[in-house]
């Protein structure tokens, strides 16, 4: 290999290493952001995280096909419009949404969800005044459950 070829190859290699890792996370993040924008009509980074929402998930899930999640909120139910559940890295990040009425008496949801890989779980509450608040927790998945 002569010097010219070597220089060219090394330049390509360096460019590849610097750009490739930068592209992937940006793409993964935009998928969740797109989904949130489509369904909620607001940007994800405009949603504030608050401590009043209690999201209970296992820290490590053995099987991604069955991850139990429980969402509770210390906010009166008559101030809440809807609860949304998202998983960041699923092929379809949107899991479910529940509409609450004062007859519910409390903001609560317990169910089991599928997770493809280790990722964040988000519970987003839409309040009656049009604002959004959320809680985020990470679940480590050892075996995926999306097909």
């Amino acid at each position: 290999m002569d010097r010219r070829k070597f220089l060219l190859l090394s330049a390509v290699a360096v460019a590849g290493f610097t750009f490739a890792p930068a592209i992937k996370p940006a793409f993964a993040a935009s998928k969740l952001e797109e989904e949130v924008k489509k369904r909620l009509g607001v940007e994800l980074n405009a949603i504030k995280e608050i401590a009043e929402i209690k999201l209970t998930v296992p820290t490590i899930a053995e099987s991604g096909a069955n991850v139990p999640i429980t969402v509770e909120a210390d906010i009166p139910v008559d101030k809440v419009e809807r609860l949304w559940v998202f998983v960041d890295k699923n092929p379809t990040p949107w899991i479910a949404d529940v509409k609450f009425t004062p007859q519910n008496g409390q903001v609560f949801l317990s169910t089991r969800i599928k997770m493809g890989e280790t990722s964040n779980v988000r519970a987003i509450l839409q309040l009656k005044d049009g604002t959004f608040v959320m809680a985020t927790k990470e679940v480590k998945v050892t075996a995926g459950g999306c097909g």
Partner: protein
Amino acid sequence: MATGTAIVRVPKEAQKGQVIRVQMVITHPMTPTRRDPQTGQEIPGHYITKLQLFYNDQLVSEMNMGGGVSANPFIALPLKVESAGVIKIVYEDNKGGKWEKTAEITVK
């Protein structure tokens, strides 16, 4: 159990004004729509899209979901009871199936 059958669990008795949890398990495959990795063809999923919770024929909660909920979904929702009555869940899937299941509750 056949697809679409459900078990609804509520406490037998409750106090007036108490918030109870309505627990349900629905038998359903809940397969998401996905692409075949070899051929690239879309494989249609089969999942529940909507679930409604009624209390004495009044709509309390409505839940929308997709293929992201586990097979044979377990769901628990809160309900404030004021008088004895009938709790009913109505649910439908993306292939046109529609079912309902009721449970009764007495109030002291």
